[in-house]
């Protein structure tokens, strides 16, 4: 009797995540309808974001925030990937246990710091540094990209370290016995062996960078401008939502939902491809 109830409750809880995901998609899709019908696919490459007279109509296009999201993510990935690989190699192959352990904890703490802290620190301390080196006015695409990189490095490094650690010692030792250098062992034994996990961690970090809101909101400049230079201020989908969603009405609101839907679908595809193709969770 109690057993049946328990089982049903656990089954219901398990299906809840399915319903929430479907619910998110359905709600976003529903509220995005007006914008979808008005603009169709042109939404993706329309640069204007202009409310009409008296809040009636207007032209809304997602081009600027979409490009801003993609570019800041690309900058972050280009910087973060080699750094994270380096840290993972350091932790698994170079450092002794007494060094690797505290460094590991430090990296994980870096991952635990809330993103709003990165944003605020970046605005007051890192943006001036970027400004003095690259010019511009401090906030902009480049600053957002670099701080985003700092945010995703620990996450990427932790997963890469874990998958590198799964390489059997026998394989490494036989390579060393053949006279291979440490780098050759890393390149020809460890990397091929943990390839899936490494690519998976990169893609997961990519998904995280795409959807990151607060750190970027402080740093990207939040203006509806197409970028010409890398230091130019612009905006991204999450930042536009964070700053303007609550005040929007009618068609503008619907266009915001449209952007949220695009972001949700893209990150859904990215994350599930990482899960299914590369990380393929082993069910014990």
């Amino acid at each position, binding site marked *: 009797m109690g*057993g049946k109830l328990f089982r049903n409750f656990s089954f219901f809880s398990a299906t809840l995540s399915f319903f929430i995901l479907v619910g998110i998609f359905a709600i976003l899709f529903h509220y995005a309808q007006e914008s979808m019908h008005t603009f169709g696919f042109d939404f993706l490459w329309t640069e204007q974001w202009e409310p009409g007279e008296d809040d009636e109509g207007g032209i809304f296009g997602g081009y600027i925030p979409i490009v801003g999201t993609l570019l800041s993510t690309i900058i972050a990935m280009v910087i973060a990937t080699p750094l994270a690989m380096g840290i993972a190699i350091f932790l698994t192959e170079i450092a002794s246990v007494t060094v690797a352990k505290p460094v590991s904890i430090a990296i994980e703490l870096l991952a635990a710091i809330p993103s709003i802290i990165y944003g605020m620190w970046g605005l007051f301390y890192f943006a001036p540094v970027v400004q003095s080196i690259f010019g511009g006015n401090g906030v902009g695409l480049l600053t957002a990209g670099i701080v985003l990189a700092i945010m995703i490095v620990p996450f990427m490094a932790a997963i890469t370290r874990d998958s590198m650690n799964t390489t059997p010692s026998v394989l490494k030792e036989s390579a060393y016995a053949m006279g291979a250098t440490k780098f050759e062992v890393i390149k020809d034994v460890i990397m091929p062996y943990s390839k899936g996990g490494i690519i998976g961690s990169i893609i997961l970090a990519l998904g995280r960078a795409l959807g990151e809101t607060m750190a970027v909101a402080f740093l990207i400049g939040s203006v509806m401008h197409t970028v010409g230079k890398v230091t130019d201020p612009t905006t991204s989908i999450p930042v536009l939502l964070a700053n303007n969603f609550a005040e929007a009405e009618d068609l503008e609101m619907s266009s915001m939902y449209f952007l949220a839907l695009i972001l949700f679908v893209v990150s859904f595809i990215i994350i599930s491809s990482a899960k299914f193709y590369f990380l393929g969770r082993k069910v014990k």
Partner: protein
Amino acid sequence: MNRLILNKIILLLSTLSAVIGIGFLFWILATLSYKGITSIHWATFTKDLVDGGIRNLLVGQFTMALMATFVAVPVGMMAGIYLREYGHGSKLASIIRNLSDVMMSAPSIVIGVFVYALLVDPFGSYNGWAGAVALAIMMIPIIISTTDNMLALVPTELREAGMALGGSKHKIILQIVVRAAKVGITTGILLSFARIIGETAPLLFTSANNQFFTMDLGDQFPSLTVSIYNLATYPDEASRELAWAASFILTMIVLTINLLGRFVIRNKK
């Protein structure tokens, strides 16, 4: 000789990456501590935002995070129990497991938009319930995944011993399996709590913010993180100082809970 030099260079670069990583951690913590500690006064803790303190914000943020925890922990644990103990090996369980992993990485701002459409728009006002629900949605998949992974570590023999004693399935799960995985699950709960207490994006247009002390969840609800975002962008020095103080306190809370979680697991092993 070439390959030996290349080897040296790569190892050097790897070490350098670790130094850079640690360097940023210290840079962030150092500026945060300096700015935070110099900005904290006694009044920071005793006054509400309207009078230049963060008392109501701390209470509000913890209230929403705790309410989210009260929902997410039972739901997430039960779901994890289903995946590992009842549905294990079934197609449905593996689909749900993957969907829950995807949900864990869903952009937090999108969850905010979703909850806005569901719980704010129809009622015409920001409210604390919506904030708590948004945080719970963020937390559930983390709890599911921890529970699932921790139950997987419990040896099958324990379950079999329970069955041999004639225990019913749910009694075995509750009194043997979950108990054996208690430490790991507790750590997971602590870490996920540390994660959601610092969230901003899902709260921006669900709970929004409130300058005054309130426990009325039907009203706009005070949030520490949303306040930091607002205060940091105000031009006056007093607001910025308060933002630094709040950021420092928030980071200390998050890191303490995080270390506590790790400490629990190390002690029991």
